[in-house]
Structure formats: structure tokens, C-alpha cells
């Protein structure tokens, strides 16, 4: 029998004692496979009169292993029949019944012979604790317990404050600075310089250095593909910065490069997309025109 926690064993024993009308200590001892306590047994007659000798005490075994006595008997008879040996004497079994069995005249009848009526009163259903599956015994998760905090209030409060701060920032900015609106769209008058939206100005800056095929298609195409495939290219499992010096350096080059190109395209390019110094020649950047004015 597996090691059961004491309190579960006791609960089971109490339930059994209540159902069978026997003292709890006795059943508990039976379950633990120990000797019954010295206290006088008050149970039903023949079940408790354990006789010694070479015979098997089926009642004790039934209590010990949690297998009903009729099943034990049947197994014993089956083994005896298979081995061709005599059935050992059974403690607690009526003498004439044992005799009938030993002559192997009618084993089935012996099995069918009713035992002394024990059990719960009619109409009461009892339940038996079959086994206790300890957590992790069948399905191990292998995860270490982690230091966690409740999302409410710890995370939600922070998120809500961040949301309010962003809303306040945008409302204030919008109250004081209008979005740019230039003259009506005119197909015949191209402004100089003509600049793409600011997030494409890094690409437009590249156009000043490379062939359009390279700057407009190959570099952004391969750039996006490389970005998307980062997890499948970088096979290093560690997330510690000390182990990822190469990956971090490479990404930093990309990040700084993209930022510098965008800032260059935005602030350092003037008429004809030629290089200008914003502090001497002025800023030619309409996206933020209303903010910078």
C-alpha cells in the first residue's frame, strides 16, 4: 500500500468505522497493516475471531489490502485449482464450508455462500478511498514556482497611468500645435524639396547614395526579411546580454543606422534633396513644420 498522509488515512478509517460499526483505532491499525490495538474488539462476531495456525486470515488480508473478501476467496480457489493443491484453511470461514471446498466438490457454491451480513444499513451508500494520486506523480510539469504578483492592482494601475499620461500628452500637444495643412493639392507644382513621410525618409536618404533598385527595393526588402527571420537565424538560446554581444551589436548598428538616416533625411536635406545645415539654411521638414515654427 502506498504511503498515505495520516489525515487521509484517518478520514477513510472513520468513514469505514461509521459504516461498519467498528472502532476507528482498530480499522486504522488494520489499514496500516499493524496489529489491532489491545482494546477489546466490539465488532461483529466471526469476522474478528482471528484464529492462528497455517490458515490464511482472509478478513485481515481484506482489511490490509483493501480487497473484498469474496474476491480473495475466489483468487485463492482459482490458484488452488490451477496448482492442484489443497485450499488452505480459512480463518473465519464456517467449518462445513471449508470442508466442502477442500473436497473440491462445489467450489462455486462455496464462493456463492453468503458471508455474515456486515456493512452499512440499507439505503446508505458508502464510498471508499481507492487511492490518492499525489500532485506531480503522474504528470510532472517541471516548472519552478516563480515570483509573481497580481495583475490587479499592480500591473493594471501602471498601465492605466501610462494610458492617462499618453492621453494627456497628445491632448496638450493637439491643443497647442495644429496638424499641418498646406495648399490644395496641385499636380502642376511640385514643392522643393518633396519628402516622403518621415518614417520613409531613411529610405529616401538611401536613394541619394544608391541606385533606386538597391535603395528602394533590395535594401528595404532584405531588411524586412532579415528582421522577420531573426528568431530563426539567431540560434543562441541565452537571453543574457553578456551572451549575446554579437546579436546586440548588429541590431544596435541597424537601429542607430536607421535613426541616423531618418534624422538626416528629415533635417539635413533641403531643396533638391541637397545637404543643408538646419541651423544655417533652415529646416525643410513639413511633417513637424507646425511644431518647429
Amino acid at each position: 500500500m502506498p504511503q498515505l498522509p495520516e489525515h487521509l488515512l484517518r478520514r477513510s478509517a472513520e468513514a469505514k468505522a461509521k459504516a461498519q460499526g467498528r472502532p476507528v483505532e482498530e480499522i486504522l491499525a488494520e489499514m496500516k497493516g499493524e496489529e489491532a490495538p489491545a482494546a477489546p474488539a466490539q465488532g461483529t462476531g466471526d469476522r474478528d475471531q482471528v484464529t492462528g495456525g497455517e490458515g490464511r486470515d482472509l478478513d485481515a488480508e481484506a482489511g490490509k489490502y483493501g480487497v473484498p473478501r469474496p474476491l480473495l476467496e475466489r483468487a485463492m480457489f482459482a490458484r488452488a485449482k490451477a496448482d492442484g493443491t489443497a485450499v488452505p484453511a480459512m480463518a473465519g470461514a464456517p467449518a462445513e464450508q471449508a470442508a466442502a471446498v477442500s473436497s473440491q466438490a462445489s467450489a462455486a457454491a462455496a464462493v456463492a455462500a453468503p458471508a455474515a451480513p456486515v456493512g452499512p444499513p440499507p439505503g446508505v451508500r458508502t464510498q471508499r478511498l481507492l487511492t490518492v494520486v499525489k500532485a506531480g506523480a503522474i504528470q510532472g510539469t517541471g516548472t519552478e514556482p516563480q515570483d509573481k504578483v497580481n495583475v490587479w492592482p499592480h500591473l493594471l494601475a501602471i498601465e492605466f497611468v501610462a494610458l492617462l499620461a499618453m492621453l494627456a500628452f497628445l491632448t496638450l500637444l493637439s491643443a497647442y500645435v495644429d496638424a499641418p495643412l498646406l495648399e490644395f493639392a496641385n499636380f502642376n507644382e511640385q514643392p522643393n524639396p518633396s519628402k516622403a513621410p518621415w518614417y520613409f525618409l531613411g529610405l529616401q536618404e538611401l536613394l541619394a547614395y544608391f541606385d533606386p533598385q538597391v535603395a528602394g527595393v533590395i535594401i528595404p526588402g532584405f531588411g524586412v526579411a532579415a528582421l522577420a527571420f531573426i528568431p530563426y537565424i539567431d540560434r543562441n538560446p541565452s537571453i543574457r546580454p553578456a551572451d549575446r554581444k554579437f546579436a546586440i551589436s548588429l541590431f544596435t548598428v541597424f537601429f542607430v543606422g536607421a535613426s541616423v538616416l531618418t534624422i538626416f533625411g528629415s533635417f539635413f536635406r533641403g531643396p533638391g534633396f541637397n545637404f543643408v545645415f538646419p541651423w544655417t539654411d533652415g529646416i525643410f521638414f513639413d511633417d513637424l513644420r507646425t511644431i518647429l515654427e
Partner: protein
Amino acid sequence: MADGNGRVGIKEAVTGMAGHLRKSQVWNSIFRPGSPMRSDNSDSPRNRSYVVMNNVLYHLHPVKVKRHGVRLSYTLCLGGLSFFLFILLTITGIFLMFYYRPTSPQAYFDMQALATDIAFGQLVRNMHRWGAHVMVLTVFLHMTRVFYHGAYKPPREFNWVVGIVLLLLTLLLSFTGYLLPWDQLALWAVTVGSNMAAYTPVFGDQVTFALIGGIQITADTLLRWYVLHVLFLPFIIVIFMAVHFWRVRKDGGLSGPL
């Protein structure tokens, strides 16, 4: 409850009504058990769990997160702010749709009317435009943050790819919206941008034709980009966002600690 004259003061009346309201069946049907809005709520670990678990929030957040994840310095809230900006842009965008016609020259006149005729029109347009710029920034910075934390490593590889798609969709949403004011800035910025698409090898002309609905930008382009901006791209990005958020939960929440 009553003042010296035996009358019930306004403050007491309001407090009493609020108390009745918070005990009413209607109120309790709206706020599920554990909500701090309920009158019978008390602060306990169980009720803190219920605030998330008994709530539509459970689609976004687990009941508990790793302790290092709630530090503001870890995420800078960039992903959450991107999502909030998307919601804010949807709300302000719906407002703008009431006053905007994607035809030439009405589109430009409607922009002027927003500034002069419509209550809060200019404010909402400003919020929409600045918010869009900020969203491009936060999405890009969110990607950078995720990279430096190595949060794209298994099992989160695919969610990184979904994130790259979301970045591209954010850029496309911003770019399609750029044309809508129909002023010189919009027209020529989009001209420069879509000229780059013409350099696509082999079928550059076809790409440009499909993108701007013709050989050059016309009022047809305006309608096309309007539909892309207010319907098609938001529809696509919401689907990808749903996958993105779901995978954040399923892949074990925040990565780390480092």
C-alpha cells in the same frame, strides 16, 4: 441623515442614491463578483484574481505576472501604449469620418471645415495625426525593446514575425492616411513614396498601378487609399493583433528576467 430642520441634505441624498444604485440588481449584473465597483467587494487575493478572471480583461492579461514584468523600466509599456494609441486613433478616426468625403476637391474643403466649422474638429484631427506619428514610434521602439530582451527566442519566434507584420501594417496605415488631407504635403509625399514602389523588379509598373489605382495619383487614388485606411487595413491589423496578444499569453507572458 437629516439636518437640523429635519430635511435630507443634497449630499446625503446623493450618497444614499449612490448606495442604493451600487446594491441594485442592474449594477451587480454589470460588474461581476470580485470587481472593485461592487459594494460587497473586499480586498483579498481571491478578489484580486477575480478582477481579471471575471472580466473581459482576461483576454489580455493573466491573473498573475512575473514580478519583474510589472516594473515600468522593463517594458516601458510600449506594447500597451501602441494598443492604446490604436484605440485612440480608431475613436478619433470615426469622428473624422463623419466630416470627410474622399473626393477631390471636397476632401480638402472638409479639412478646412474641420478647422473652422466643426466643434473640436481641429483638436480631433490633431490628435489623430500626432497620435499616428507617435504610434509608429512606439511600435518601432517596442520591437527594439523586445529584441534587446531576447524575447523573440523560443517559444516566441512566431510572435516576433507577427510583430513585424504589425509594424508593416502600422506603416501602411500611416502612409494611406497621409494622402487623405489632399494638400500639397499629402500629394507629393505620397508621390515620392509610391515612386519607390515602381522600382520593384519585373512588375514594378503593375504594383504601382494596383497601389494608386492608375498611372499617376488622381482622385481615384484618394478613394482607394481611404477604403484601405478606414476599412481594409484596420480589419487586417485587428486580426494580427488578436493573434499577437493571444500568443503573448500562450507563450508564457513576458520573457525574462534577464
